[in-house]
């Protein structure tokens, strides 16, 4: 696979002083779907807007298909389609005309046959002559997607495509995205729904406070979520875990010595739970209760963001001492 987007040490500080992007580096492969996950204000829109040319970076470079977005902007922009977060669309225009308009902006000759195909795939063909103001919110969003596709971009940015959209429509949107991906379009979407990242993405990037905390293939992340944690409550507190029980297991003892934690992989052939319990009873350790908990993407995400918050706090100067 080859990199279609190369973001290198990108920074953006707005005039207001807000540091919305802090040294972000990211390589996006051709044909993948990457989800940028992060809470509101994390910098997702700023990142997308900078790559697309709406925001002027204060540092770093971006290349799209090898073309620098500042020096070779025309070539870079021709490859990109953007569906913005806010629905900004001309209301007194027909669906077909607005899509034709966008195609023109990208310097391409009219091709109504292709536009028909796009509108059909977004179930907008019947609405082609309707004024946009007559359409529902979900349809308006699909018109924005149609506009973004009007020039056959190789990379599509979807900024929170399903924010405020009902479940049925969300599923429909996912289908649209999958179909585009099959056609070879690289897709970058932002979301604050984990479910969405999980459902759609090949890779997931977590962003907070303008920093890209991690980027990992979803499968790898899911491997981490496939883990479960078994908590064993004990009748008698332990000072330490007897060596014959620790053996080669990943076991940990709580501070008060009253519970043992055991991480295991649900997908492994043997979880090792039965053997652990047998060993405990063999060592005379009485078990009061057991419980298990699955770590979700949500938790991993919150942990990451949480760690990040602490790091931020720690690095902030003490101002409230007075």
């Amino acid at each position: 696979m080859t990199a279609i987007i190369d973001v290198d040490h990108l920074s953006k500080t707005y005039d207001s002083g807000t540091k919305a992007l802090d040294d972000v580096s990211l390589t996006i492969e051709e044909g993948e779907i990457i989800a940028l996950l992060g809470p509101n204000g994390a910098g997702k829109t700023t990142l997308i807007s900078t790559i697309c040319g709406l925001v002027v970076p204060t540092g770093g470079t971006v290349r799209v298909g090898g073309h620098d977005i500042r020096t070779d902007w025309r070539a870079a922009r021709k490859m990109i389609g953007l569906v913005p977060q806010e629905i900004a669309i001309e209301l007194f225009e027909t669906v077909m005309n607005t899509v034709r308009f966008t195609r023109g902006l990208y310097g391409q000759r009219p091709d109504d046959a292709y536009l028909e195909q796009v509108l059909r795939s977004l179930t907008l063909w019947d609405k082609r002559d309707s004024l946009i103001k007559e359409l529902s919110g979900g349809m308006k969003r699909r018109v924005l997607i149609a506009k973004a596709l009007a020039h056959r971009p190789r990379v599509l940015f979807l900024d929170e495509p399903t924010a405020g959209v009902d479940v049925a429509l969300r599923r429909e949107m996912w289908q649209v995205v999958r179909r585009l991906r099959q056609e070879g379009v690289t897709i970058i979407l932002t979301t604050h729904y984990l479910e969405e990242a999980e459902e759609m993405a090949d890779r997931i990037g977590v962003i907070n406070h303008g920093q890209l905390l991690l980027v990992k293939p979803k499968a790898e992340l899911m491997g981490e979520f496939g883990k479960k944690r078994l908590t064993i409550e004990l009748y008698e507190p332990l000072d330490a875990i007897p060596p014959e029980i620790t053996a080669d297991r990943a076991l940990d003892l709580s501070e008060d010595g009253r519970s043992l934690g055991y991480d295991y992989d649900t997908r492994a052939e043997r979880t090792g739970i039965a053997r652990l319990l047998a060993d405990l009873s063999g060592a005379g350790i009485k078990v009061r209760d057991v419980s298990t908990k699955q770590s979700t993407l949500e938790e991993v995400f919150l942990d990451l963001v949480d760690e990040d918050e602490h790091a931020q706090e720690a690095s902030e100067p003490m101002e409230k001492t007075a």
Partner: protein
Amino acid sequence: MNWPAVQAIFMHEMMRFFRTLTQSIASPVISTTLYFVVFGAAIGGRIQSVEGISYGAFIVPGLMMLTVLQQSVANASFGIYFPKFAGTIYEILVSPTAWLEVALGYVGAAALKAILVALLILATSFFFVDMTIAHPVWMIAFLVMTAVAFSLLGFIIGLWAKNFEQLQIIPMMVITPLVFLGGAFYSASMLPPFWEQVAKLNPVLYLVSGFRWAFFDVADVPIGVSLVAVAIMIGVLMAAIRWIFLTGWRLRE
């Protein structure tokens, strides 16, 4: 050059004009008629002729200029302000369209609309006065250059404006007074010497005067000066627009 983009923007702007065709046409025709009735009949009754031209005919170039200036500024400023206001400008900003192409599309459409309306006024005025145009080619050249210059100005106003009030303020406070004091309805030579000198500081005077020369072969100021003035204005405004787009001022964060 990204010509399809120029064409897309241009056609998009022209379509708005045609969608509201009655409105676009009716109001200038009605106001011209009113000007003829009020100025032509009332003042024309007292002033038989100015510089040998019947007063009714004398005000035609002024009326056309008045309209071209107002319409150019209004069309172009609204044309670019509206997508900024509605947020749809993002589409242009992320597209492979350079400042010159964006400006050509918007300014071209704004200027053409203003020219069409001015020609409509000319056609209407033939119902009221009898006249022949001395230099028709220069008349069109002046009309086009003025429309372009003021559409560029309107375009900048639209880029600069942050709200509807700002959008209206310059046309209202600056352009309209300049036009009314620019000799649309009188000749600068009719003023007392002091005021004649003051009037000559008004750039619009040169436009009206040059335009009137194209009609009647008489002018308050040398025609060459008028042409150079418009050409300089176009150059300066183009440079300003280029700067705005290249720095992203009020367009990009």
